[in-house]
């Protein structure tokens, strides 16, 4: 069994209004050293397959076909074996 932890974020070149609003709020709480804030989604998949490579491949395909929209989003996948 494998677990893929997937982070989907708005691409760096695109304004993330939600991130900006939160950044303003952080500043007003005194977090002056925070210079950028991006908000994304965390998705966790449990994958019942034989190898880590296969689990990574499935995760990649899931991101490409459904979990992320390449026009506006980037994604990072971390796959690990679990018992």
């Amino acid at each position, binding site marked *: 069994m494998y677990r893929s932890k997937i982070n989907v974020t*708005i691409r760096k070149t*695109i*304004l993330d*209004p*939600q991130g900006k*609003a939160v950044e303003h709020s952080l500043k007003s709480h005194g977090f002056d050293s925070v210079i950028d804030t991006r908000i994304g989604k965390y998705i966790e998949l449990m994958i019942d397959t034989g190898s880590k490579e296969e689990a990574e491949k499935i995760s990649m395909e899931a991101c490409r076909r*459904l*979990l992320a*929209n390449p*026009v*506006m989003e980037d994604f990072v996948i971390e796959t690990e074996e679990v018992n």
Partner: protein
Amino acid sequence: MSKARAGIVVFPGSNCDHDAYNVFKNILDTNTEFLWHKDGSIGDRNIIILPGGFSYGDYLRCGAIARQSNLMKEIVRFADNGGIVIGICNGFQVLCEAGLLPGVLMRNDNLKFICRTVTLKVENNKSIFTGEYGIKEEIRIPVAHGEGNYYCDDETLTGLIGNNQILFTYTDNPNGSLNNIAGIQNLKRNVLGMMPHPERASDEILGNTDGRRLFESVIESVL
């Protein structure tokens, strides 16, 4: 009697389906049926409407789940063969997710759900959707969305402009959309997506009929 046969697609969470049905059926006296998202076929319909609403609760991304439905696969085939498809609001988001229109609708830049009547400019009246309007005519149409901020890459935008695919723009941009884009058509000119709701501005009793001519244009284009 027109040969137009409208099909209004209903997803779980659609909420402007009856408004669209009312315009086609009762105001424009057109043969109209609802199509359930699980249907395997669009039957004899020759105009497909993807209505506004919150299909599948807007989970994951607006329109991302709806576009996976059985019926959408049929609608993509229908559109690829030149069939007329109109996506309004959530329907526009579904069309972008399905790849029938380029780009994506992102969160409004002010993060607010905007629900008010706005002024649109008709940028191209040579389409089957806008033939009844004047060029650069300004019309008043309601918007109601949280994710109407149209975005695409530079290359796509250049194509949209060069091919006269931008049909409607906002005169006072409410949501941050690129180039004030409110509605676009595809390259083949048979698919329209727009965030504003012309079906909410088609009945005289509601005090504004600026949207009605869009549907009249489409119905007339079906010979």
